[in-house]
């Protein structure tokens, strides 16, 4: 490989943020457009992962007096996302028991 | 090679591990010599050397795994047979040593049946997904003072991560078979795997507290520095880890996944031929990986009270791995199988509380060590005595409290313990009338 191309390969903060943004928008699409309640949950988890990527990129690249705060924050996000996934899936299973469906188009008793 | 080794150790100038490239006691000498030739004479760039070092380490580990997977088939069957007062395989080769060859040929020439309604890609992917974390577990094991493939600072958590990936692979196998019994079996297995992850994490946490680092090489160096084996410092953690990981590996006494008499094979009922062979080999590889972890963390790894300066460290480690594996096979040949509810109760009511109490006591000892600054020669023997007493008292006390009706020699033969069976409403009404 020519040295010019090799020398031009750098990894900047903006590129990592773009990857995080891509994952976030895919998760947003999943959360808004899936019919199955578990599909929506998959979108939410993907969004939380994208947020973690952004946080860790900031922790690595940005000038800060305590640079590891990003990783602390990311660990807390992982913890809370796991707790939220457990409760959301328990909710989905409980709704299924009553209504035989997890299709959000059919769970609309509280809609106007 | 044995002659070369004997020549090495008997020559007084070479009794201890040296830096010569032909000193196989530290294999990094050989690789360093190769890298020096490549870097200085052939001008290979740095990333080439780095890739080559990764490749060499991986090839070494995979060749070890391949050899072990073959030998352990023989070890299991022969040792279990001898323990059950019968000859194991003894027809093929001396002492039946060529039995694994016959097993491999048999599996390779069997027809690989795939049900038409099974999910094609997922069905094929499941044995692979089960094998890869088992092999990846070997990446952090230190084989010598300078011989670690991946010197991770978070080695212990990496081990937990790889074992929990295996749980996902079990589900893929059960679902891909499109067979409700396979799915059922795989659900039970996943419940068991997820339950037993907790005592495993808690017991290894006690080890990390003492060693002060999650790096596996650091834990071995702690043993070397303080001249003590971790199993002496924490027998309770060793016992809990051993029992929980034999449940994680689906070995007897916890092998209701593949109990041929129970659920017809569980999640690998639809697999035949070499796919089943891969599952079988993957379980053996997982067992050896867990033995390697126990040998490294609890039994001191490549260090053995100054013997490792004469004998190669990796040979000592392989010896310890086989010792722990022998204990695994011993429990398989001796103990009967648990039921699923007994297994889960064992995890939640026995292993987890004992592991938590272990952490409590260990953390107190480490805190006393840090705060008072007494030397290790005072703290560590005291810890050995306290932890040993704790293990004995805790096990005996727990059995007395949790199972007060346990009789070692029952006065009346029973095939089952009493279970409360909920009665139908009509029967309950009858019962109430007759007893009232």
């Amino acid at each position, binding site marked *: 490989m020519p040295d010019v191309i090799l020398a031009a390969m750098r990894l900047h903060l903006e590129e990592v943020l773009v*990857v995080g*943004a891509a994952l976030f928008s895919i998760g947003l699409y999943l959360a808004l457009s899936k019919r199955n309640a578990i599909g929506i949950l998959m979108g939410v988890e993907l969004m939380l992962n994208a947020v973690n990527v952004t946080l860790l990129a900031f922790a690595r690249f*940005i000038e800060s007096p305590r640079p*590891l705060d990003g990783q602390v924050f990311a660990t807390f996000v992982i913890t809370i996302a796991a707790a939220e996934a457990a409760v959301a899936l328990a909710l989905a299973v409980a709704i299924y028991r009553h209504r035989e469906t997890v299709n959000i188009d059919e769970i609309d008793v509280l809609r106007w | 090679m044995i002659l070369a080794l004997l020549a090495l150790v008997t020559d007084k100038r070479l009794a201890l591990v040296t830096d010569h490239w032909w000193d196989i006691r530290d294999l990094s000498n050989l690789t360093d010599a190769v890298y020096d030739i490549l870097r200085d004479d052939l001008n290979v760039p740095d990333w080439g050397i780095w890739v080559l070092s990764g490749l060499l380490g991986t090839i070494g580990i995979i060749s070890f795994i391949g050899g072990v997977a073959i030998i352990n088939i023989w070890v299991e069957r022969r040792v279990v047979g001898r323990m059950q007062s019968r000859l194991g395989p003894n027809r093929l080769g001396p002492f039946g040593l060529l039995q694994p060859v016959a097993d491999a040929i048999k599996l390779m020439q069997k027809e690989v049946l795939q049900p038409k309604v099974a999910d094609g890609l997922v069905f094929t992917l499941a044995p692979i997904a089960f094998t890869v974390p088992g092999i990846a577990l070997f990446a952090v094991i230190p084989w010598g003072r300078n011989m670690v493939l991946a010197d991770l600072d978070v080695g212990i958590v990496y081990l937990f991560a790889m074992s929990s990936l295996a749980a996902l692979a079990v589900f893929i196998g059960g679902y891909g078979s499109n067979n409700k019994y396979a799915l059922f079996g795989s659900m039970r297995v996943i419940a068991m795997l997820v339950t037993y992850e907790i005592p495993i994490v808690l017991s290894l946490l006690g080890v990390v507290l003492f060693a002060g680092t999650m790096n596996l090489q650091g834990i071995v160096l702690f043993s070397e520095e303080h001249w003590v084996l971790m199993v002496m410092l924490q027998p309770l953690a060793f016992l809990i880890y051993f029992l929980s990981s034999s449940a994680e590996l689906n070995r007897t006494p916890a092998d209701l996944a593949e109990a041929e008499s129970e659920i017809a094979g569980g999640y690998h009922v639809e697999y035949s031929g070499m796919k089943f062979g891969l599952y079988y080999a993957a379980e053996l590889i997982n067992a050896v990986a867990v033995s390697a972890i126990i040998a490294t963390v609890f039994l001191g790894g490549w260090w053995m009270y100054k013997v490792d300066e004469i004998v190669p460290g990796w040979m000592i480690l392989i010896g310890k791995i086989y010792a722990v594996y022998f204990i695994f096979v011993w429990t398989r040949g001796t103990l009967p199988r648990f039921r699923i509810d007994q297994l889960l109760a064992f995890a939640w009511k026995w292993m987890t509380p004992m592991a938590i109490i272990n952490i409590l006591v260990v953390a107190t000892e480490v805190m006393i060590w840090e705060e008072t600054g007494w030397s290790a020669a005072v703290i560590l023997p005291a810890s050995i005595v306290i932890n040993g007493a704790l293990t004995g008292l805790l096990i005996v006390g727990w059995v007395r409290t949790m199972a007060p009706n346990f009789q070692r020699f029952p006065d009346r033969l029973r095939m089952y313990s009493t279970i409360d069976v909920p009665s139908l409403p009509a029967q309950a009404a009858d019962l109430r009338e007759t007893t009232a």
Partner: protein
Amino acid sequence: MIEDNAIVIAFWSLSATTIVCALMVAAVRNLVHSVLFLALTFVGVAGIYIVLSADFVAVVQVLIYAGAVGVLMTFAIMLTPGADRLNASTVFQAPAFVLGVMVFLLIAWVAYDTEWRISDREAFTTTAASLGEAFLKPYIVPFEVASVLLATAMIGAIILSRAERDDRA
């Protein structure tokens, strides 16, 4: 910025794999396949964390997300056998797609437009010990609150998914 070529190559290959797996989560027909692709996405994201020299967070990600949340989702799918497994979309598919693209462009524009204060620090060497200290000294209160939250979530999930008994007197 990172200048090591191997790390840059690793980052781009890992990101490409992760984004392709995330797109497959949205695109495959079968719900179980989609959950498996999600587990692969989690592992890919763990690879990105390692590139950003967050080794502890990466192994915790594999342990919790791929090992536990993935298994939890497959359990939930298995416990809802009557529901369809089609991974279909609602009527909001097209607006959601447009919104996703717009959000992506917005974040990318903000990322490239802001003047970040980049530091020329080297990569972190030991994160686990420093993270442990950070959890126990400045951030002890969120740590304890997170443990209470986990206990509450566990109890809540158990209560929500208990089978109702008909003969409860």
